[in-house]
């Protein structure tokens, strides 16, 4: 699949962040004026285990180039055990996506606590860089987006 590289192309990355840890960590990164790539859009979720695997497919359908799921470190879950389920679920999901042709770099999960502002910045920067190297994602994209919307016939 040859993809025309546009020098100005910036990836669109969706990050699902747990309200209790990663979202707070991202907030702290902001308070500390840390700089991280602006192509990451954060969606706040009550717990990383709230993230349904369908959300990830949906993101790819709607044109995201990468998806990141972040939650509390195992043992620190606000709901005690939520992220243990996340861990199992997304280890399998990542492999299933790879099996269907999606690079595992395009879907990653990380544990980032409320105090780890620097880890949030570093993770997001690295993921953004990795996806930039992979180029735009066309796999699993809805026709509407791959064809360029209503204006395109």
């Amino acid at each position: 699949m040859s993809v025309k590289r546009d020098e100005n192309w910036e990836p669109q990355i969706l990050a699902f962040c747990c309200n209790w840890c990663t979202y707070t960590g991202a907030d702290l990164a902001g308070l500390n004026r840390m700089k991280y790539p602006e192509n990451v859009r954060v969606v706040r979720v009550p717990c990383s285990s709230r993230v349904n695997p369908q959300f990830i497919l949906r993101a790819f359908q709607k044109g995201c180039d990468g998806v990141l799921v972040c939650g509390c470190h195992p043992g620190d879950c606000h709901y005690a055990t939520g992220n243990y389920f996340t861990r199992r679920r997304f280890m399998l999901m990542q492999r299933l996506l790879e099996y269907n042709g999606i690079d595992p770099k395009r879907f990653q999960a990380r544990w980032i606590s409320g105090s780890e502002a620097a880890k949030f910045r570093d993770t997001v920067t690295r993921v953004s860089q990795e996806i930039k190297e992979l180029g735009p994602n066309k796999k699993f994209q809805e026709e509407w987006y791959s064809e360029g919307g209503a204006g395109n016939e």
Partner: protein
Amino acid sequence: MQLKKTDLTGALKILAADASVFVPGEIEGIKRFVLWDGESDVDLGGANTQLPPKDILFPCTEKMYNYKMGDSIEIKEIVEKPRQVIFGIRPCDMRSIDCMDHVFLEKGFVDSYYSRKRENVTLIAMGCTTPERTCFCDSMGLDPNNAPNADVMMNDGGDTLVLEAYTEKGKAVLEALNGLLSEGGQAKKDTACTLKVNMTPELPEKLAGMFDHPIWDEVTRACIGCATCTYVCPTCYCFDIDSDNHGAEGTKFRCWDSCMFSDYTRMAGGHDPRPTKKERVRNRYMHKLSYFHERYGQHLCVGCGRCVEKCPAHMDITMFIDKAAEV
């Protein structure tokens, strides 16, 4: 007129010059009508296609118009008038096009999406030489050797195909192929189905009075409620219209729907007049064998046997017909 089978590719090339030609072919192990690629040999024998050619005239998903909402609503209709040729379509599938013509073009209702495709299609039918064990079209009143509504009727004549034009469109086809044709040709027209079904002329009316008959409890229980029978059926024409919405813009499309689905008759508010598979299967069988006959004077089942072949639960409309004829 006759055409040597060795000249078939040449004939298809002439037809493909100004139209998309669909021929029986195979994609990923599924026999279906495919767009002719301009060079492959075409096998008109063997089993009939597993999928009917209905999606050429009535696509599985058909975009109707794009819309954009702003200060005013912009609507851009998607009008397609493709010149198409369906080559090698068998009498059972030809009859199914006849049924769809009734539905989409008659009684004062003309479906513009269907009619645009129908007017621009040339149907070159092929008499069936290889009925499957599930085929029962001659019991449904068809002749497997002849399709009266074809533009050109082909029959197998050994080394040749014997062609006869039935319509003006068909005459034009024969004229275009003139260089490859020669006079004469004798075709065998003795194909008959091995499966005989007791489809009596009285059955449509009889079934109409059997709506509450206990037979339905028995014949519908094995159904798993999937849509295989309706989607492989050449005559099932039900569709739904929905939109693919993206914010303030999107596409309106219509797509096949199936009376086997639980949401097919569900109304706003949640009531469903056909709540279980009994009502759904009854509706399908009644529609095929009784309702359509009442409205248009012919059966909606053409006897192609695809639903018998493909049903996951091995339900069999022919067994039902025989049973219903006896009670």
